[in-house]
């Protein structure tokens, strides 16, 4: 049995934040779950995927976040408790659905999880999604700890049903990817089937209906604000005259700082866990009791600006500080020492930070950026495109996935990137606005997510470009989730359809379509040359299974290679490919047989044909 289905209330378990949220949803009787995977939310959906295989929980990997919100919204319209989860930028994709879903509302509880990523550990921006709550008018909840992340989910579902609208649950990476002890609660039975009652004058927002629904949304907002005033997730601690207003993971840094600075008697902490709509009276009462307030919140000054507004309305003039050159920044994530230092500075405490070791004599260390895996087929495709385009003045728009790592030398194959699916749009702009050959790259999952409209656009507007679809048979970057092109039979899963990328591309009317096998270097280069020479839209589909995924499927492994005596140390392999299986020993390139996957890319480009398969069964370097 999946550990998150353990029906022993009171038992303590060490869980990852994402597991705790999944457990919270199971306890709340969630019956319908959907996602497009994105770090730091991915393990949450992985757990639902696993649980759905052994229970009547419905789970799907949707093609993108907007679709995941739409399917979950319809389930909730039938009275079924549903949850859609995504990373912060995923909510941008789902925003169109979200904004009007706020008007249309739900019947069964619906929770939309947005996992924000301050410091951008694995994201292209660090937008603060609390503003989506304000923009949509929907309630938002934010836990501070792993155990609270479990508990708050049931509260979110109840709140959603009370208000008949979806609730946004916002986490940050340090909640999703933290672990802590969690006390299991009762599991409420799942209701997997509901019923839909036709009610077009409330559910079909044509203008006359929408005008009425916006009134309802504002009424709901007022109701929600009263619930926020009473919420157990908005907490006041202490009775001191120094106020600290905080949220999310920052609350922990505040608690530790207050303990270490020994100022618990002087401080009042207001922790906001119900962050939209904010409890105005509660904040005003808090401000009234303080002579000075410091706001500790990662990201934008969301609480700070609200607190200043509420202070003005209450005629209060106390200093409220937060984001400032000498205090907190909107950049990156906070940490305990930073919060300790700023609390001390804000309230005039003398405080000396513990002496960190002196690093002035430490030599510059070589960087260790994440890189494409040994034997990754993207490396082969990149090499081949580079070769095929030799002599051409090129621009390489890229997209979001493992292959974005191709931006690093020696491959250096990414010139421009905005968001999921952007490569198929930006490539057209470059092709019109500059006189260079434009070749863009997109992965299989990203193509389905939001790459298709850009390609349709390119065909319709007759752009001159080459799009390379890197089809490695799985959504690799986020941990091998299925996508519509994946052969689900390989995963021993039944009941799925399968969409052929090639059929989609041809159906769009792309005039020049080629499928290549990137481990066949010469053939691939020839095919790419032809596609690149084509005037108009050409598409290359480069098909090869992700090596990590192939390993997880226990597919037969290829023999590793070694560098033989014929090597004349040209170093083309290292200089053009830099596969992580290479290492340098006494000035010569060697191949680590434990890392080599036998893709034979280097063997095919070696000018001396010096790289050969390891003959005997025993692996050696």
């Amino acid at each position, binding site marked *: 049995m999946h550990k998150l289905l353990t029906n022993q209330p009171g038992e*303590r*378990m*060490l869980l990852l934040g994402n597991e705790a949220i999944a457990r919270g949803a199971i306890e709340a009787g969630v019956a319908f779950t959907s996602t497009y995977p994105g*770090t*730091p939310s991915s393990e949450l959906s992985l757990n639902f995927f696993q649980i759905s295989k052994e229970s009547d929980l419905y789970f799907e990997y949707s093609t993108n976040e907007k679709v995941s919100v739409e399917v979950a919204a319809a389930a909730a319209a039938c009275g079924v408790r549903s949850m859609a989860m995504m990373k912060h930028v995923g909510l941008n994709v789902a925003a169109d659905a979200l904004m009007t879903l706020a008007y249309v509302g739900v019947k069964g509880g619906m929770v939309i999880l947005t996992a924000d990523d301050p410091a951008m*550990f*694995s994201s292209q921006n660090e937008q603060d999604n609390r503003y989506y709550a304000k923009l949509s008018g929907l309630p938002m909840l934010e836990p501070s*700890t*792993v155990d609270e992340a479990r508990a708050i989910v049931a509260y979110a579902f109840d709140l959603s049903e009370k208000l008949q609208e979806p609730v946004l649950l916002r986490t940050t*990476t*340090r909640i999703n*990817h*933290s*672990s*802590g*002890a969690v006390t299991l609660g009762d599991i409420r039975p799942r209701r997997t089937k509901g019923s839909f009652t036709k009610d077009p004058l409330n559910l079909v927002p044509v203008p006359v209906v929408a005008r009425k629904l916006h009134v309802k949304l504002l009424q709901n907002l007022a109701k929600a604000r009263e619930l926020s005033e009473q919420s157990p997730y908005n907490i006041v601690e202490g009775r001191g005259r120094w106020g600290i207003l905080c949220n999310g*993971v920052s*609350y*922990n*840094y505040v*608690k*530790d700082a207050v*303990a270490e600075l020994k100022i618990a008697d002087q401080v009042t902490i207001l922790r906001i866990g119900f962050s939209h709509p904010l409890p105005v009276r509660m904040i005003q009462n808090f401000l009234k009791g303080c002579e000075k307030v410091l706001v500790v919140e990662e990201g934008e000054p969301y609480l700070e600006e609200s607190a200043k507004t509420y202070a003005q309305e209450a005629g209060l003039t106390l200093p409220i500080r937060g984001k400032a050159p000498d205090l907190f920044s909107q950049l990156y*994530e906070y*940490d*305990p*020492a*930073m919060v300790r230092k700023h609390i001390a500075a804000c309230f005039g405490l003398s405080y000396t*930070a*513990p*002496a*960190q*070791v*002196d*690093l002035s*004599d*430490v*030599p*510059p*260390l*070589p*960087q*260790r*950026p*994440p*890189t*494409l*895996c040994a034997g990754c087929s993207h490396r082969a495709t990149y090499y081949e495109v580079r070769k095929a385009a030799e002599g051409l003045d090129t621009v390489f728009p890229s997209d979001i996935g*493992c292959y974005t*790592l191709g931006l690093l*030398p*020696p491959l250096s194959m990414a010139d421009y990137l905005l968001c999921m699916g952007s490569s198929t749009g930006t490539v057209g702009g470059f092709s019109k606005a500059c006189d260079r050959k434009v070749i863009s790259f997109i992965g299989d999952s990203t193509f389905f997510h939001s790459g298709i409209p850009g390609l349709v656009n390119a065909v319709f507007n007759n752009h001159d470009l080459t799009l390379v679809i890197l089809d490695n048979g799985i959504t690799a970057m986020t941990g091998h989730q299925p996508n519509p092109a994946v052969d689900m039979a390989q995963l021993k899963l039944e009941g799925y359809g399968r969409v052929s990328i090639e059929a989609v591309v041809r159906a769009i009317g792309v005039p020049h379509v080629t499928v290549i096998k990137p481990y066949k270097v010469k053939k691939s280069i020839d095919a790419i040359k032809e596609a690149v020479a084509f005037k108009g839209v050409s598409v290359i589909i480069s098909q090869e299974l992700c090596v*990590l995924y192939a390993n997880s499927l226990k597919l037969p492994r290829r023999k590793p290679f070694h560098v033989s005596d014929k090597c004349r140390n040209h170093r083309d392999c*290292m*200089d053009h490919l*830099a596969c*992580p299986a*290479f*290492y*340098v020993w006494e000035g010569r390139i060697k191949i680590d047989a434990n890392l080599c996957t036998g893709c034979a890319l280097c063997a095919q480009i070696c000018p001396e044909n010096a790289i050969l398969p390891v003959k005997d069964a025993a692996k050696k370097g």
Partner: protein
Amino acid sequence: MDTKRLVMVAVGGQGNLLASSVLGEAALLAGVPMRMSEIHGMAQRGGVVESALIFGDAQSPIISDGDADVLMGFEPAETLRALGKCNARSVVITNLAPLMPFTVNIGMGVYPDLKKLQEMIRAKTARLIAFNATTLAREAGNVLSVNMVLLGALTQTGVLPLTAEHVKAAMRRKTKAAFLDGNLKAFEMGVAAAQNS
């Protein structure tokens, strides 16, 4: 309860996530409050994986520069890179087997000298335990048990409020049965290595 903070750094694939999971389970068994956080989005792509483990009453799930009681590095250059987490009272444990970053191989950086690296860490911190954990893991029967060797060394220092029994009991629950004997052997070799260093 006194708070003890452990920073673990490794290269993706070295098994530090399992090491943290064993320590988390050990804390649960010992009744020690524990929080940890990990950045592992790129773990399988050869990047650096850093874990923060906090034992005791503190609530924060991360560790600031200068706040670590113990720094444990699975790879020597990564240990040095994370040295800013330490103060003069910190204990540092490091594997001495280098994993060459590809940037060095393509001439974009120089790997630090291992002798100087140890001198530097020793001079700046309270105690350095440095040995080739990869060799010991191989001797224990599985080169992938570097994490268990290092857990042995960590337990020997006595800095964390966990006994060897807690950690071994957690290993029984968290590591695969087929590897348990080898892992326990690796753990004991780590204990011995720390005693002798």
